[in-house]
């Protein structure tokens, strides 16, 4: 699973050789560790609106080194472009060119974040053009950034200021090492809900979370990340994976529940276990999933139905039980694992892509039901992640697949887990019905 090429070209003669030959130059990404500073240097807040002023003041209260104008030659941790009052595409020029002047001062692992409103809610064609312009601007800029720097955007529903709780939550997430492999993405904040955690190192303290498919790979890492963030865990996997599940559970002080999520009563059994053993249920992470790849011409009933059943039908059934329960009413959170295959499609994965696109459809349609309970449902769509599963891809194919993104490397299970932990936290309470890609801005499916 180790990415030998990235290790090789990050220093010494191989580094300069790769540069001369124009080969990809991936760097080790800045990933979150407890105690780490939020950003690697000063944060410049570009933009002259009242929203920009308030956001700068808020960031100052986080003890960040905040600038309203870049100081020449000063190395920067992040550039935030507050574009919350765009009326015409011409309004982009000033803040964008101001940011351009400091781009070369961005430290490795730096961040560019835009804060704007969605075009769909614009009041005039010119305003919509300006708002949509941010989309193309940011996605292109993200592809220009190097040395592990990323660019992402926060989209605020009209009426929400840049300092609304989940806007701050999203900015915090994008600034931090938790979003290392999230690049070129927008996250929409749709309500005033949510609050920043009292202790930023334990944002899930007091929460009881269920993770399905927790015995291995990304699921096991989700368990470790949620545990680190303070959650009490129930880990679910099929009985046949019980030994690996027990080992993960014993590492994170969780209880192990051996359960086939495709069983008719799976949702009720998850609820019963969480409530009886831990007194409550706050967070459900639908991670369990399978692949049974075959070209459609060779697809059989077993491969098709097992993928649909486990990857999406089981989630639908479990959600029904959760939504019917009186124990899932206190700001409940559901986070599902989708896939970029469900966005861009993937040869040999018609069944898998149908199921994962289905997850995104489900998330969108279930969002109002959770909003009615003060909760949220969101999905993450991982791109190329270094797991046992992707390690089995033939070398050449794997090497191409992992370089085809703006960060020129595969993500780690922890990158997916960090994003899930954020979406499950109180800070993301105003983010609902969203699909956030964790793909390093993969070139396919953009």
């Amino acid at each position, binding site marked *: 699973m180790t990415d030998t090429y990235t290790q090789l070209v990050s220093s010494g003669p191989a580094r300069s050789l790769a540069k001369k030959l124009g080969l990809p130059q991936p760097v080790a990404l800045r990933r979150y560790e407890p105690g780490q500073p939020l950003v690697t240097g000063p944060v410049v807040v570009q933009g002259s609106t009242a929203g920009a002023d308030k956001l700068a003041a808020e960031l100052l209260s986080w003890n960040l080194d905040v600038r309203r104008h870049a100081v020449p030659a000063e190395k920067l941790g992040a550039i935030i472009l507050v574009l919350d009052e765009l009326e015409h595409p011409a309004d982009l020029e000033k803040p964008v060119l101001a940011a351009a002047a400091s781009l070369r001062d961005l430290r490795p692992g730096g961040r560019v974040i835009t804060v704007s409103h969605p075009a769909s809610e614009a009041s005039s064609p010119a305003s919509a053009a300006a708002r949509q312009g941010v989309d193309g601007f940011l996605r292109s800029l993200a592809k220009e950034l190097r040395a592990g720097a990323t660019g992402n955007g926060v989209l605020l529903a009209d009426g929400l200021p840049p300092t609304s709780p989940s806007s701050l939550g999203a900015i915090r997430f994008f600034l931090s090492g938790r979003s290392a492999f999230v690049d070129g993405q927008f996250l929409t904040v749709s309500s005033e809900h949510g609050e920043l955690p009292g202790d930023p190192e334990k944002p899930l303290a007091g929460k009881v979370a269920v993770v399905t498919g927790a015995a291995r790979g990304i699921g096991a890492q989700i368990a470790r990340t949620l545990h680190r963030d303070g959650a009490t865990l129930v880990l679910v996997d099929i*009985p*046949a*994976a*019980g*030994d690996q*599940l*027990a*080992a993960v*559970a*014993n590492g994170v*002080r*969780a*209880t*192990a529940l*051996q*359960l*086939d999520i495709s*069983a008719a009563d799976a949702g009720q059994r998850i609820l019963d276990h969480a409530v*009886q*053993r*831990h*007194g409550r249920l706050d967070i459900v992470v639908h991670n369990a999933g399978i692949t049974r790849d075959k070209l459609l011409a060779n697809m059989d009933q077993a491969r098709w139905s097992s993928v649909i059943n486990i990857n999406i039908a089981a989630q639908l059934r479990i959600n029904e039980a959760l939504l019917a329960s009186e124990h899932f009413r206190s700001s409940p959170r559901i986070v599902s694992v989708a896939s970029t295959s469900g966005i861009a499609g993937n040869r040999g994965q018609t069944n898998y892509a149908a199921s994962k696109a289905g997850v995104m459809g489900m998330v969108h349609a279930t969002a109002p039901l959770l909003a009615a309970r003060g909760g949220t449902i969101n999905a993450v769509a991982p791109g190329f992640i270094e797991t046992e599963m992707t390690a089995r891809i033939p070398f050449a194919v794997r090497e191409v697949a992992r370089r085809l993104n703006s960060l020129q490397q595969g993500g780690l299970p922890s990158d997916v887990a960090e994003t899930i932990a954020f979406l499950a936290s109180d800070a993301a309470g105003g983010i609902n019905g969203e699909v956030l890609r964790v793909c390093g801005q993969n070139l396919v499916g953009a």
Partner: protein
Amino acid sequence: MSIDGQSVPGPGAAAQGTTVPATRRAVIVGGNRIPFARAGGAYAKSSNQDMLTAALDGLIARFGLQDERIGQVAAGAVLKHSRDFNLTREAVLGSALSAETPVYDLQQACATGLETVVGLANKIKLGQIDSAISGGVDSASDAPVVVSEGLREIILDLNRAKTLPQRLQILSRLRPKDLAPLAPGTSEPRTGLSMGEHQALTTAQWKITREAQDELALNSHRNLGAAFDSGFFDDLMTPYRGLTRDANLRADTSMEKLASLKPVFGRNLGADATMTAGNSTPLTDGASTVLLASEEWADARDLPKLAAVVDAEAAAVDFVHGKDGLLMAPVFAVPRLLARHNLTLADIDYFEIHEAFAATVLSTLAAWEDDEFGRTRLGLDGAFGSIDRSRLNVNGSSLAAGHPFAATGGRIVATLAKMLHAKGNSNGRPARGLVSVCAAGGQGVVAILESL
């Protein structure tokens, strides 16, 4: 709930003077075992310590006991290496439990597992401990192999010798036959007969037919297979080394297949030999654990309470002089235990009679149904009684699951506790279960569990 350190409770009422504590309930919270493997199979390279640790870790994960200081853990193995004198303590140290958990090893042949349940439950009832894990493990694959008695004496003498001539003189005693290792056997030291040969005598005495034995074996396989299919073991078992079901299980076996097997025990009886590999338990590897607690301890941790350990009784028979069959001790233990509680066989909802051999179960039932045996041996007015066979080993037993000697008691207790809890109260009383385990040396241990 665990605290750092091992704090001593402050002086309370007990400090006023020595008092005998009132007893309280000991409850079964749940259990965990690894699938049982046939000897030489999936666990051929696993030690007792490996398997017991795996069974413990699965239990810890199921009930969230990481870093918990359990009141006491007791487990044991029948086939035990001398280096494993602290087998259970070593397994606990290798598990996710607190290293401050005290432990003892116990060995009572095939009753080891049940006896650990009884002993620990008694400590809980007396208030000596609040929580306990009982267990048992056996590996017939990784069994100790011993050097001959001659070689052993020579090695020990060599160790004591001081000079080279002395050593050479001692070495000159070595003969080729001394170099042959001794494999472990299950023969009774006082009779030289294997357990199967002993049972063959009892089988003949009680005129147990081949067909009845095969039918019992068939039911055991069918019941265990159905239990697996229904997910009954999903919260009683954790896979190990690729096994997710008991390897001995043949859910698709039939009377025809069982009838085709040749007798392996009692072959000197000629045409009357009835005991085959199909209706006898095979040598097996495996481990099991049971979590026991006071009600307060379980409640404080929001843990389930499946059943209570009501009472237990041990018995032994004089098999050496042929007065009773080697495995017939439970025939005497059960009537004594039920009498103590004013119960009859009709008051029991589930019987878990360990299937050492199909004929062991059938001989036991035959003895209880025998008028003369009841009068002359049990001191009753007539036969002790018969049981409703639909209540016997309803989720399978050792013939299908296999029988890693010390692990069988834990398998039965956890299985029965779950069944009793599911049945719950009926007819104004809790569901009752009877466990009966026979053991080498003419011993037996039986116990009553009651649903909560």
